[in-house]
Every structure is written in C-alpha cells, then in structure tokens.
C-alpha cells in the first residue's frame, strides 16, 4: 500500500479512537451537571471514567504528534490558522483535567460546584470545537498558494460548522449516556435513560440538518459513498433510540459508536485524498501527498503505529475489563462508610491504647493521672468505687486499702 495512504489511515484511526473514547467521556462530563442530582451521583458518573481518562488522552496526543511528523504542512496550516479555536480547546482540556483531578481534594460544596462546572465546560467546548473543526475540513478553510491559512479564525464559523458543532455535542452526550447505562446501576440508569430518550430526537434532527447542509453546501456532499454512509448513520442513530427503549444498552452504545465512526470517516472519505479543502482555490487544497513528509518518515511512523495501536487497544481493553463493574450510589456510600468505619476502628484502637496505659498508671498509683481524670472516667477504669461523692484523696485511700486487702 501507498505509504501516504497507510500513514494517513493510521492517523485517522488515532483521531477517531480519540473521538470515540473521549466522546463518551465528554458526554458524561456534560451529563453529570444535568442528570445527576447529588454530589454522590456526580461522583458515580465521574468514577465511570476516572481510571481511564489519561489513557484516552493518549489518542489525541499521539494523533497530534503523528500529524506533526507525517503531514507537517497540514499541521502547521491548521494549528496556526485555527489559532483561537485551538487555544479554547487547550484551555478547556486543561480546565477539565484539573477539575476532574482536583475535585476530590476538597470537600466544600462551593469547590465541588466550581469543579462540576469546570468539568461541564471542559467537556462541552471540546465537543463543540471538534465538530466545528472537522466540518471545516469539508466546508473549506482559506488555504492560500503557500499552503498557509490566510484569513481570520472566524471564517471557521458558519451556520454549517456551528450545526456540526452542535451535532457533535449532542452525539457525545448520547454516546456518554449510552456508556453510563452500561456502567451504573438501574436506579440511576432509569433517569439517564429518560434523559437520553428525550435527547435523541434533537440529535437525530440535528444530524439530518447536518447532512442536508453537507449535500447542499459542500463539494464533498456530492460524493456518493460518503453521503451514503452519512445517511446510514441517521438510521443507526434512530436504531440507537429504539434499543434504548428496549433496554438493550449494549446495542444502544454500539449505535452511537457507529454513528460517530460513520460521521467522522465520511468526512475523511468524501474528501480523499484531499484532507482540507481550500475555500480559495481547489488547487490549494491540502492532500495527503502534497502535505506529507518524506517517505522515510512516513514509513517509520507507520510501522511504529502498526505495532503500537493494536497493543494500545489491547492494553486499554484489559484495563477497562479490570475496572469494569456497575457503579452505584449505594456502592459509593458503602465505600465511604467503610472508610469512616476504618477511621473509627483506628480511633478505637488509639483509645484502647490510652485506656490501657491509664489503667496501668492507676494500678501503679500514679496520683498525677488520677487527679486529672474526671470522676466518671475513674469509675469506668476503676469500676469498684462508689461514684457519688468520693474525692480524689478518698479514691487514693480506697485504692491503698484495696491493695492492702489484696
């Protein structure tokens, strides 16, 4: 196979992998503010992806690095052209990471609320921006003869790309809901399901508008296979709602996965071998030959990807299986109680130790300690004496007498 096609295909797998995996992550991040009612429920939501989060980010970082190495001209043109959009994306990713990681460090409600909104916006912005950026590939960016982005970043905004951004946001939410239904117990799941069912018509509607606009406004829309795939994804998405109603959650999750997969791959397939359309002149469009690095580079990173991607997938499946269990509020409460219980045991042990030492001191007639103890404590530790009006001296005298008697 052509080295350029292979390398670009593998890059596509990385990017799609990122969108699929972080897709439900972002979805959950948005749903936790809308769907969850208590902090414990939010924690359950976030716990469904917490151990995996960093693993998902790998896909983005790797895709970025591969694009840099394999297709530096695309990388340079897009990253500098979509400057502010990428800045927002980065800021959102940072916000999200920090909010998820630092959320548990502080128990106060205001901090939690702040972090919850951090997670929400940190999830919504990337979802929206990815839709916007990917649709821009179809719509075209002002790429000039030097393969540079010429013009303002605001040219990336149009009705078409905003619709695509909204579509991705909705798809990610549905995708996230589908994933949550697999990972949380039924009491929470029922509510998520109701939300998802209400959200589905919007998703489907938005998808249909997106397809219509694609066919009407872009060259790529004329590409039959791509249009076919896009049309198919509408039916799959419809199927997703049906399966959700039937409580067949695995199929529902598969439906949103296929919808995302189909939409992203349709974007790339429809343009192939062009990656980014130039809105200025078709001659200036960036394709996988003109924008690529030398053959040595492509070969090396393709080989590395051929080895690593299967390993990465295997590793992440293994890890997902490791942490795969249905989470519930009750389970989390139990965990918290367990934790508190352990604390209490520790306290009890400490107390036992103190008491032990004190009673030893009492037995050895250490009056210093005896005087400091309250009458009640003395009674508990000593047990025998009449608690009513004994003074400390009497207690001592008592003690001595007892001792002598013994």
């Amino acid at each position: 196979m052509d080295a350029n096609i292979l390398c670009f295909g593998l890059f596509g797998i990385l990017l799609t992998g990122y969108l699929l995996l972080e897709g439900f992550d972002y979805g959950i991040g948005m749903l936790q503010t809308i769907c969850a009612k208590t902090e414990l429920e939010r924690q359950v939501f976030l716990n469904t992806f917490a151990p995996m989060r960093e693993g998902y980010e790998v896909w983005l970082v790797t895709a970025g690095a591969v694009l840099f190495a394999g297709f530096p001209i695309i990388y340079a043109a897009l990253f500098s052209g979509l400057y502010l959009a990428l800045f927002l994306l980065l800021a959102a990713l940072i916000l999200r990471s920090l909010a998820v990681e630092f959320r548990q460090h502080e128990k106060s409600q205001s901090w939690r609320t702040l972090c919850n909104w951090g997670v929400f916006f940190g999830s919504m912005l990337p979802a929206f921006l990815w839709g916007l950026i990917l649709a821009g590939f179809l719509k075209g960016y002002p790429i000039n003869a030097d393969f540079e982005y010429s013009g303002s970043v605001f040219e990336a905004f149009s009705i078409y790309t905003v619709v695509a951004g909204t579509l991705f946001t909705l798809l990610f939410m549905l995708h996230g809901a589908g994933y949550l239904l697999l990972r949380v117990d039924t009491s929470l799941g029922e509510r998520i399901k109701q939300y998802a069912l209400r959200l589905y018509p919007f998703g489907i509607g938005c998808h249909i508008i997106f397809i219509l606009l694609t066919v009407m406004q872009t060259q790529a829309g004329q590409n039959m296979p791509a249009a076919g795939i896009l049309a198919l994804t509408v039916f799959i998405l419809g199927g997703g709602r049906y399966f959700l109603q039937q409580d067949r959650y695995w199929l529902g999750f598969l439906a949103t996965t296929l919808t995302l997969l189909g939409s992203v791959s349709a974007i790339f397939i429809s343009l192939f071998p062009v990656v980014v359309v130039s809105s200025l002149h078709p001659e200036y469009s960036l394709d996988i030959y003109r924008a690529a690095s030398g053959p040595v580079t492509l070969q090396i990173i393709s080989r590395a990807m051929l080895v690593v991607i299967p390993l990465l997938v295997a590793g992440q499946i293994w890890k997902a299986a490791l942490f795969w269990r249905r989470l519930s509020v009750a389970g989390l409460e139990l965990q918290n109680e367990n934790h508190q219980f352990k604390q209490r045991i520790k306290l009890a042990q400490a107390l036992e130790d103190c008491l032990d030492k004190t009673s030893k001191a009492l037995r050895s007639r250490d009056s210093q300690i005896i005087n400091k103890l309250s009458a009640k404590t003395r009674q508990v530790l000593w047990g025998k004496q009449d608690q009513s009006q004994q003074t400390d001296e009497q207690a001592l005298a008592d003690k001595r007498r007892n001792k002598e008697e013994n």
Partner: protein
Amino acid sequence: MDNTAVILARLQFGITLTYHFWFVALTLGLSVLVAVMETLYVFKNKAVYREMAKFWGSLFLVNYVVGVVSGIVQEFQFGMNWSEYSRFVGGVLGVPLAFEALTAFCVEATFIGIWVYGRNVVPRSIHLLSIWLVALASNYSAYWILAANAFMQQPVGYRLEEGYLALVQIKSILLNPYLFYQYIHTVMASFASSGLFVMAVSAFYLLSQQHHKLAVKSFKLGLICAWMAGILTFASGHLYTQYLVKAQPMKVAAMEALWESAESAPFIVVALIDEEQQRNKAEISLTGMLSVLAANHSQARIAGMKEVQEQFAALHGAGNYIPPVLLLFWSFRFKVAVGLLIILVTSLSLWYFKKHQLQVQRLLLYGVIWTLPLVYLSHLAGWLISEVGRQPWLVYGLQLTEQGISRNVPVSHLWITLISFNGIYAIMAGAAIFFMRRRILIGPEQPGD
C-alpha cells in the same frame, strides 16, 4: 520585520517550556522514588513503606497532572505559534515526538490509572509493576523529547528537500552525541531536584517533630538520590560544556563572556559586561582556567565570540549571531553555584545522617528547605542557557528564530494567548501548590483516598 510577534511567541514558548519542565523534573525523579518505596513495601512488607508510597505518591500525582496538561500545550504550540518552523522541520522533528507519544506516553498514561485506582483491584505485583512502568516510561519519554531538542541544537540525519527537511535516518537522531550529554545532565538534574524535594519535606517534618519514622526513612531515600544525582549533574554538566566547545562554540563563549579568542583562555569569575561595545568593562579572572576546564589543557585555544561571529557571517551572511551575553553569563554562574550548593548540602546531610545527628542540625535542615526553590530557579537557568544560547538560531545553522514563527497569526492573538495561558498556568500552579502544601501539612497519616 516587526519584532513583537517573535518576542511574544518566544516568551510564550519559553514560559511554557519552563513551566512544563518544573513539573516534569519532579515527575521524572519522584516516580522512581515512589516506585522504590512501593518495592520496599512489597518486599519488606512494613507499614511505613506503604505509608510512604501513599504519601509521596499523592504529592506525585498532583504534580503529574499539571505536567501532562502543560505538555499538551507544548505539543500544540509548535503548530500554533511556530507554523513555519513546523513545516520546515516537521518531517524530522515530528518523528521523535510521535515516538514519544506512541511508545512512552502510551504506557505511562495506561498504567498511571492502574496505579492510582487499582490498589485494591489488581494484585500487588501488578500494582508494583505499574508504578515502575510509569517511572521508566516517563524517563524514557524524556529521551525522545530531548532527542527533538538535541536536533534543534545540532541537526543530524536530515536532508534538505524542496526547502523542507526530510529524514534520512532515525538512528542518527537517536544517537546524536549532543543528546547523550543533554539527556544525562537533564535527567540527573531532575533526580537531584526530586531527591531534594523529598529531603525538604522530610526536613520540615523533622524540624516540627512530626511523623518521625517516615520522615527519617524518606529523608534517607531522598538524600541518596539527591547526593548521587547532584554529583552526576555537576560532572555531566562539565562534560556537556566541554562538548559544547566543539559543537556550539558561540554558546560557550557567551556564557563565559569570552569576546576574544585566546590560547590559555581565562575563566572569568565575575564581570561587568558591555554588550554594546563587545567587551567586559571589568572582570575578575583566573588565567588559563577556562582552557583547562573546557579542553583539559592550559594552553588550549578557545574561540571567542567575535571570531565565531565572523565565521557565521562568512557562512550564513551578515547578521548578529551573538546571543544575549549578560543573561547567559549570569545564568551559568547561578547554575554552577546552585550545583555546588546541592553537593554541599547533601554531603553535609549525609555526614550528619551517618552520625545520627541530623535532627540537631536545625540550620542544615533549614538549608535543605531553602535550597529547593534555588534548584527550581537553576532549572530555569539551565534551559535559558540551552535555548537562549542557541539564538539567533531556531534550528542550529538551518533556520533563524524569526523565520520560524506563524506568519498568519496576528499579534493581538499572540497577546490573548500569552496572557490567558499565563493566567491558566498561575491558577494551575496555585492549585497544585495549595493542594500539595495542604497534603504536607495534614501529614502522611491521613489516608489519601
């Protein structure tokens, strides 16, 4: 050409790099130290080691999060602010970055989750394995990243094709001699600062007489790490500089403020530098010392800045090829001073530790704590020398810095991102320091999760 864009882009890159490295430095060393603690726990099965691993692990994690996040910014910045540069070198420089993501970050990110959340999920052996994999992968990833940097310092294994660089051999990028010195020096410096971090926190506990058992054990571990790494950093720095005399004579001449070429070149201890007139107004110097240090021979000839300038001008056309001398000169002195301080502090600590008198030496313990911020500043100084010393080149001998920036990004956008990113960095660092500080104040006995 308007200079503002270049300055802003450079400032942003420099700040991001330094910021990223401050967190990475602790990640590189502390991950290994935590892995050692975990190993001790698994094999000796003592509660104190478990407590240590948990406590230092929790500090490590706060730090790790910020390191990863700022790393993503770093990756995006090549394309955002330096698109001309990215187009020019992407085919070569992207390869080590791609390999870093594919072979190192991959492993790191997969196993960090297992280590954090898997204590009660996976068997102990796999839990131990996962922290070792995180530690090794992060140190291994540094190799690829520094390979990219070494390429910018000393380009190898490339070919110019239609105005772009094309890769000829990945092997030469990985075996770049520059990389060899740089890697050891950087990683050892990271280990020294991580060891010192552990020592400083333990010293705080010793001073306030808390958590005695854990503090002593941690101090010992940090001490061994910082002492060895401190000496190795210094030694590798010496060899690195000797290598620089051959590889980048301008950098060495600038950081030694040596204007004129000289046989038996003097080592200038302090100087009043006049960059305009290209001379030192006053200096205290040791005759012949620089030749000895740089080339092991008191009569060795060391090229001065003026001579290298002429060579560059003849080779690449007219222009100023002298980096900011004042900055490099003092950065270098500061760095060397801190290096000596680390060796002094750790050696003294070692001495008193062996005599079991550490706790009485309150002054020394305070010294350990106050050395830590200096070490972080010396990281900054080190990168300043490495990156500013390469100026005006972006890729040494191939591309000037001003040729590398994004031509299509307006200055206003640069301002927006510079200010916003710095705001974000400040918040991020603030949060990280706040949570670390609180964790330290609460102490290790409080269970982490």
